[in-house]
């Protein structure tokens, strides 16, 4: 069964600190995505990747970096976390053909 695992599930960070959110998929999918979801908003695309070594900017990339060191792993990096980045973050993988997305369970990030 398709599996996308996010870690940590919950994170409290301090303003100005560095935060790394990790995502691992066992689907062997080429495409991976990072979204954030805030109350009253849908899922907003931050960064995505077509494969190892590739990262692309989504709709709201400012303040975030992404890293795709391997087919399985896709990280989201907040170099200088701000309270406005408090949100729930979802990672997803997609096969790039029909582009069905398989989501992880999400990471709840609070920046104080």
């Amino acid at each position, binding site marked *: 069964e398709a599996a*996308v695992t996010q870690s940590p599930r919950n994170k409290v960070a301090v303003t100005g600190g560095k935060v790394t959110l990790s995502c691992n998929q066992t689907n062997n999918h080429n*495409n991976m*995505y990072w*979204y954030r979801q805030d109350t009253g*908003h*849908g*899922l*907003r*695309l931050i960064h*995505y990747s*077509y494969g190892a070594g590739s990262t*692309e900017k*989504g*709709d709201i990339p400012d303040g975030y970096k992404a890293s795709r060191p391997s087919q399985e792993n896709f990280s989201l990096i907040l170099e200088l976390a701000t309270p406005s980045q408090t949100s729930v973050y*979802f990672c*997803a993988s*997609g096969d*790039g053909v*029909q*582009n*069905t*997305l398989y*989501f*992880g*369970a*999400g990471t709840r990030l609070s920046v104080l």
Partner: protein
Amino acid sequence: SQLAEENSWALSVHEGESVTVNCSYKTSITALQWYRQKSGKGPAQLILIRSNEREKRNGRLRATLDTSSQSSSLSITATRCEDTAVYFCLNNTNTGKLTFGDGTVLTVKP
């Protein structure tokens, strides 16, 4: 900018009733997907309907696609309390960038 938008923010029905969620989009698509997100979980796909299809069914779910008006609908018949969730549409384009609409909150009351 949003490439896919659901047309109603919130809907409420009673168990057993039918409900329809609508979606409009602004670009040429290869397919349109409907997702459901239950509280505390990531979204999960319900139906994918290709641009050359007009209707697709999955159990109590029926999706339609009208490429001329750039709209889609998701109908749920015989609703159950467990259908309570947020419903999103997502349009597939020729790029790898996949953007969701804001979603429609559906509440099914006993």
